[in-house]
């Protein structure tokens, strides 16, 4: 990237944005300043609720429904966006400022072909005629290393994979050769192996056209690869801003430091108990299918008491399906599930109350895992009441005990509703509900992936503590290798419904690896600004496209 001082492109001063919630306007962005020059890439980083996306959209003079820009100035290339008319502002969008959304799958209109959506803006702004625009699109697709660039645009969005869509969306943003692109978490929804390709593609194209960009993300390692400068945000306020190198090596503020320190949690790896100990759960040669589509093939692994087995793999690899087989939601077509030496009936409806009690589950999305119309005390209390037959005072004290266990103050949370809690608190309630059944085995299905890093850290620590106290066995489903590193004792790697590799954690993270494990491991971004370049060089550029076509 060029280092020379460039022309000023975007100047935001004292930006204030209000959001409408609980029937009144509340300020959610409190006076942010931002300066961006032509060709410069700025990373905006912060946890959820930091106002990153809102600021990014405000740079386009746009506020979502239920938001409004209440103060400050936004000057884009000499034009004051807060005072110009809506039609003038609209004329900038798509032509001079473009936007790349988090989920390309949701942001492409399912009803139109990709290329038609691509050419909409250039045709609308009369920059190119239809055929020219299509040819230009194909050229951009080629530059972004999409397979079949001549043809892929004529597909509908659902016919194209996520990583390819994200690149197609980047191409769409480039269609009018804008001066500024807002990237709003463009890789968050992707698997690590896909993410790396998209990152490379974005970086290349921004460099090639010398486009300025605001790159919004919560992932430090990612932003380190992309940005020239980084701005850290917290709850609508700026924490600090510095160029990438400085920010990574020498953060000034405590909050920034704490962000940097997140990945410090690690715990000792435990060994399997010897002497013919019976595994809590043993998955033995399980095959399963949805209708006629086989999804699992010959899956086997054991989980012992007090241990954590991490099941990793990309989306669609069969991790969650395995969990469904264990719980009996999806009866296996062959093979068996054995718990504490007893073979379980395949379907949950045939299992006894006691058998059901033994295995509990914690879900990824706490929002859908907790009934929004039921009070916390009833959510946690129900299993205790249902399995143990607790009532009245005994029930209440058990709930209090459980709330204590998950480090939430009983008196404060006892009679609240889930919607009044934060994401981390909800996830803790989910844990308490699982604990209330006094199980000896818990399936944790991506329990931290929807949470901010600091919060996720807290959950992991809590799970670890509970495991120690209650000698629980965990099956930890995740796609995040960092999490695996910190919490797992054993690792099972899955790909396309099969177990490709398994073993104790330390073995798995030390070479030599199985080739797929190697690909997974090497794709995890690191805090080194040069990591991406290095990896790509190691793999050879041609390697990038391959995994994406899977």
């Amino acid at each position: 990237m060029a280092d020379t001082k460039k022309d000023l492109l975007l100047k935001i001063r004292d930006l204030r944005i209000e959001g409408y919630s609980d029937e009144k306007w509340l300020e959610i962005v409190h006076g942010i300043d931002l300066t961006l020059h032509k060709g410069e890439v700025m990373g905006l980083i912060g946890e959820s609720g930091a106002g990153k996306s809102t600021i990014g959209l405000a740079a386009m003079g746009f506020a979502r429904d239920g938001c409004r820009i209440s103060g400050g100035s936004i000057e884009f290339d000499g034009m004051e966006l807060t005072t110009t008319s809506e039609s003038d502002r609209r004329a900038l969008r798509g032509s001079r400022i473009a936007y790349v959304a988090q989920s390309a799958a949701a942001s492409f209109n399912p009803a139109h072909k990709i290329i038609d959506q691509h050419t909409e803006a250039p045709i609308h702004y009369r920059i190119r005629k239809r055929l020219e625009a299509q040819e230009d699109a194909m050229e951009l697709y080629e530059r972004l290393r999409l397979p079949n660039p001549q043809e892929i645009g004529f597909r509908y969005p659902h016919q194209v994979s996520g990583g390819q869509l994200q690149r197609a969306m980047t191409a769409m943003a480039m269609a009018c050769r804008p001066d500024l692109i807002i990237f709003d978490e463009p890789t968050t929804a992707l698997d690590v192996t896909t993410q790396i390709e998209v990152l490379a593609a974005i970086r290349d194209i921004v460099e090639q056209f010398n486009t300025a960009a605001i790159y919004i993300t919560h992932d430090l390692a990612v932003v380190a690869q992309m940005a020239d400068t980084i701005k850290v945000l917290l709850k609508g306020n700026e924490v600090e801003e510095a160029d990438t190198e400085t920010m990574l090596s020498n953060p000034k503020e405590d909050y920034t430091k704490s962000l940097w320190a997140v990945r410090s949690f690690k715990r000792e790896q435990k060994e399997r108990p010897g002497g013919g100990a019976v595994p809590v759960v043993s998955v033995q040669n399980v095959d399963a299918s949805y209708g006629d589509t086989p999804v699992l093939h010959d899956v086997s692994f054991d989980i012992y008491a007090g241990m954590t087995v991490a099941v990793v793999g990309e989306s669609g690899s069969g991790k969650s399906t395995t969990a469904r087989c264990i719980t009996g939601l999806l009866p296996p077509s062959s093979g068996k599930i054995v718990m504490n030496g007893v073979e379980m009936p395949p379907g949950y409806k045939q299992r006894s109350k006691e058998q059901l009690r033994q295995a509990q589950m914690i879900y990824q999305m706490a929002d859908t895992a907790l009934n929004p119309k039921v009070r916390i005390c009833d959510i946690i209390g129900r299993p205790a009441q249902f399995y143990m037959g607790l009532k009245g005072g005994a029930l209440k004290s058990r709930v209090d005990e459980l709330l204590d266990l998950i480090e939430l103050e009983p008196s404060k949370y006892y009679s609240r509703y889930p919607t009044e809690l934060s994401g981390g608190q909800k996830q803790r309630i989910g844990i308490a509900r699982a604990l209330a059944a006094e199980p000896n085995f818990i399936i944790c299905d991506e329990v931290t992936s929807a949470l901010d890093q600091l919060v996720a850290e807290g959950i992991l620590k809590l799970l670890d503590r509970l495991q120690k106290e209650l000698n629980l066995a965990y099956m930890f489903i995740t796609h995040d290798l960092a999490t695996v590193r910190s919490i797992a004792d054993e690792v099972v790697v899955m790909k396309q419904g099969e177990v490709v590799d398994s073993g104790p954690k330390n073995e798995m993270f030390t070479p030599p690896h199985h080739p797929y494990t190697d690909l997974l491991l090497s794709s995890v971004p690191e805090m080194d600004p040069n990591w991406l370049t290095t990896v790509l060089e190691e793999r050879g550029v041609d390697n990038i496209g391959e995994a994406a076509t899977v």
Partner: protein
Amino acid sequence: MNYFVIGYYALLIGASCLAAYYSVRSAFLLLFSLTLVSFIVGIVGGESALWTITICAGILALCIGTAYAFREFLVIVLWGEGSKAIKTAPLTATFGLFVIMTYAIAGIFAPIIAPYGEAEVIAGAFAPADENMLLGADQLGRDLFSRLVFGARNTVGIALLATTFAFVLGALAGLIAATLGGFFDNLMSRVVDVIMSVPSLIFALLLLSIMGTNAFVLIFIIAIIYAPRVFRLTRAVAGNVVVMDYIEAARLRGEGLWYLIRREILPNSTAPLIAEFGLEFCFVFLLVAGLSFLGLGIQPPTADWGSMVRENATLISFGEITPLFPAGAIALLTVAVNFVVDWMLFRSSGLKG
């Protein structure tokens, strides 16, 4: 040109200018387009057309005023959540609430409010309104106003009961079908197909002819006719809830069907169901009126609006407004209910569109 016309335009143009000056865009657009429309209507329809517009505007203003005052009143009277919700309710919704409340009071206290009994003959046929009779008399010389008030009780009562019954039937079946799936679901869906494929008016006609006309049969039949629609909606709504992780958690816990329905699914399906309740209530209302038109309604001399419309419907061809009162009462209530339903749907969807 007389003073009225001059005043009329002066007021409109003045108000438009004011709105423009204070840049109240929508008000200006409204006022000015009204001015333009008035020019055309005034030329075509003369002064009387302008009077009509003025009266309509006046009624509209009165409604808005009532709604506004009622909203403020409710904000003060209610507490907690209710007050908070009302504060942000659109005026249409509070107007709807106001109308519903008025009807409810009229229905509950009908014998106290109505100056005469519902079957009491006090005057000659179609006697005009006087100081004793607010709206004049009907054909038998019964006070129309009293009958309207009693009609609120009877008509609304029947519609309410029938709708409730339809909901109990339909929602229960829908919830069970969504939760159990499989055979029961298929069976119920077929039953519903059968009922829905027979036009409702014909269905009612057949059943009423077989079972005879009385209020209970009427309620029962209407419930049967409308339960399938409720079933479909409930099944769809509950279908969305059933896939939630907390339902899976409850299933894995080994919870029974009744618990799942009562504690997990139902509380999360109420908003669309209540909204549907409002809509169905209106349709039931219209069906009762339609059945009365075919002579299969409520027993006389019980006052019900459907029959009242039917009895006097032919008068409308001569420009008499008598039949407009009960028809208006029906329309007003359905509009009011729908206003409230719209608001509740808006709240439950959380869509700030």
